[in-house]
């Protein structure tokens, strides 16, 4: 119990730190957007009062208040889910961000699961055939594919498979002619559009899981309880899945956190190029137009998503491996 509380506090602190960072960037950094806006309004001849009202609407920052009050008000509105308004259209930042979030979560989760499954399976196979041709080829392929930046893989897939050879759609998260709903039509359209971006993630990240699973399995295969199981005459297949597999997979959960961070990181570029309507694409547009409230909103949501997923992963991991709980 105490351990969960500790992790929860960590998560909360991380999110708090991110909010503070964005406040600093928006308000306190030299040459920050709010100052620039003020200057711009002054140049345009907009009266002071109006300018401040605009800024308050955009950022939830009331310039008439002392510093610490601005900070607190900012945090307060964030906690209420109000992230200000976008500069381009005036619509709520929270709305824009929330529209994209489910798409990104869908894409990221699916990619992570597929990449994990492929990697873990290949890893175990490679460990059992250690030193053989399969192992050497697979390990080299894993190393090399890991070196590929995921956005470059996305670029190549997009260019060759979608544009040159028109095998897959090049834009969008679903065919806009189809009405959204739980129909087979819609779902298959979504999957069809998600395929290439997903491949970009999967191809560049399965290698990590494979190599980790391989070394973990090799270590477990050397343990006494495996030899004992074989001596008891258990079938190889049963040993592999029940004993070896379960124990070898456990340490991999610890790197879930890093994997998540990495995937969310690349999402901006990949979604922008594929015009896939996720948080990444929203962020890309925001960056392009220098829409600071929107930029900050996207960053915060991404951070919250990563922190929450880490937290869930930690809890799942602790349920699976009792040593973690006792060790604390």
């Amino acid at each position, binding site marked *: 119990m105490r351990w969960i509380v500790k992790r929860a506090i960590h998560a909360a602190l991380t999110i708090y730190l*991110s909010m503070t960072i964005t406040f600093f960037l928006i308000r306190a950094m030299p040459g920050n957007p709010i100052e*620039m806006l003020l200057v711009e309004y002054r140049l345009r001849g907009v009266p002071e009062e109006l300018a401040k009202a605009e800024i308050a609407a955009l950022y939830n920052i009331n310039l008439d208040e002392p510093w610490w009050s601005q900070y607190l008000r900012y945090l307060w509105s964030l906690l209420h889910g109000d992230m200000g308004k976008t500069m381009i259209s005036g619509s709520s930042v929270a709305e824009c961000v929330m529209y994209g979030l489910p798409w990104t979560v869908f894409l990221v989760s699916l990619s992570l699961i597929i990449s994990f499954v492929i990697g873990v399976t290949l890893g175990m196979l490679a460990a059992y055939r250690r030193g053989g041709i399969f192992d050497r080829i697979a390990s080299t392929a894993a190393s090399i594919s890991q*070196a590929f930046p995921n*956005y470059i893989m996305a670029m190549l897939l997009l260019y060759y498979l979608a*544009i040159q050879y028109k095998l897959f759609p090049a834009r969008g998260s679903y065919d806009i002619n189809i009405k959204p709903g739980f129909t087979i039509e819609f779902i298959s359209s979504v999957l069809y559009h998600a395929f290439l971006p997903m491949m970009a993630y999967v191809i560049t990240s399965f290698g990590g899981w494979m190599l980790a699973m391989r070394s973990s399995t090799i270590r477990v295969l050397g343990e006494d309880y495996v030899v004992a199981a074989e001596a008891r005459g258990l079938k190889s297949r049963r040993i592999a899945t029940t004993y070896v597999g379960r124990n070898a997979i456990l340490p991999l959960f610890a790197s879930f956190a890093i994997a998540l961070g990495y995937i*969310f990181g690349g999402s*901006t570029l990949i979604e922008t190029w594929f015009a896939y309507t996720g948080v990444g694409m929203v962020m890309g547009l925001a960056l392009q137009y*220098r829409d600071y409230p929107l930029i900050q909103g*996207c960053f915060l949501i991404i*951070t919250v998503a990563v922190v929450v997923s880490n937290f869930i992963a930690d809890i799942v991991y602790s349920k699976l491996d009792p040593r973690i709980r006792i060790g604390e």
Partner: protein
Amino acid sequence: MSARWVKSTIASYLRSLYTALRIIKSDKAALTGFLIIVGYILVAFIGPFFIELDLSPTPERLCPPSWKHPLGTDPFGRDILAQLVHGAREMLIVGFLAGAITVAIGAAIGMLSGYVGGKLDMVLMSITDIVLTIPGFPLLMVIAAFLIGSGVKELAPPIAAVLLSITAWAGLARAIRSQVLAIKEEPFIEAAKTLGLSKFHIIFGEILPNLMPYIAMNFMLSSVGAIYAYVGIMALGLVAYKPGNWGVMLHMAMSYVGTVTGVGSWCVLAPAMAIVLLQIGLVLFSNGVDKLFNPRLREE
């Protein structure tokens, strides 16, 4: 400083170099990686003397590879190969510098935390855990956007390198701390303590040599991460224009060419492959670099 002393020091460095090369040669994958990296370094620092970079637009837009333009021309008619060659230097400097800074900070914090322990350890690790969870690349994008919005036109390589390391050091710090905790209990550390050697010597003179294989490997991998982030930021198009920067080339390729069929595929391929090949070289070399420090291999 007698001449004989200078000669013997140079001789010992040459001997170490020879040993290092011999060890690398034995591992095919690491050797490939090493050669790739050396190749890039040569191109980056010597190439510009052989190839001129002319940034003025010409009418020969998006030409396919030819004798005059071995890798073709970009949407403005400029030679792609020249841009790649001239951009290599900045890429390598920023990448390696960022890798070095990341590793330096991560190792320092990890060693301090692991050896000193107690309250310092608790505080440092709490900070590290938090930094570890903040998504690095999104944060970089935000910082870059804000910096550029506030008028910063160019980022000097050292500053860029420091920014790239802002969150990257955390993972390494944790890993190094675990290793230090284990090494601390070794008998040779107790021996050093009994001899009365200073804490400074124990951390940097006894523990550090045992961490070197891991640190060297992580230096390579951190450079990979830094290049990933650096190119990524540029590819977003945040920076208006930087001559020959590979990330900017990618951005231009995707903006002008990426959505049109049949034309200018080398615009997309050339910078992409240049980046990927460099990353592959670094990863391959990183797998074997720890061998360089293995005492069993260092002697015949």
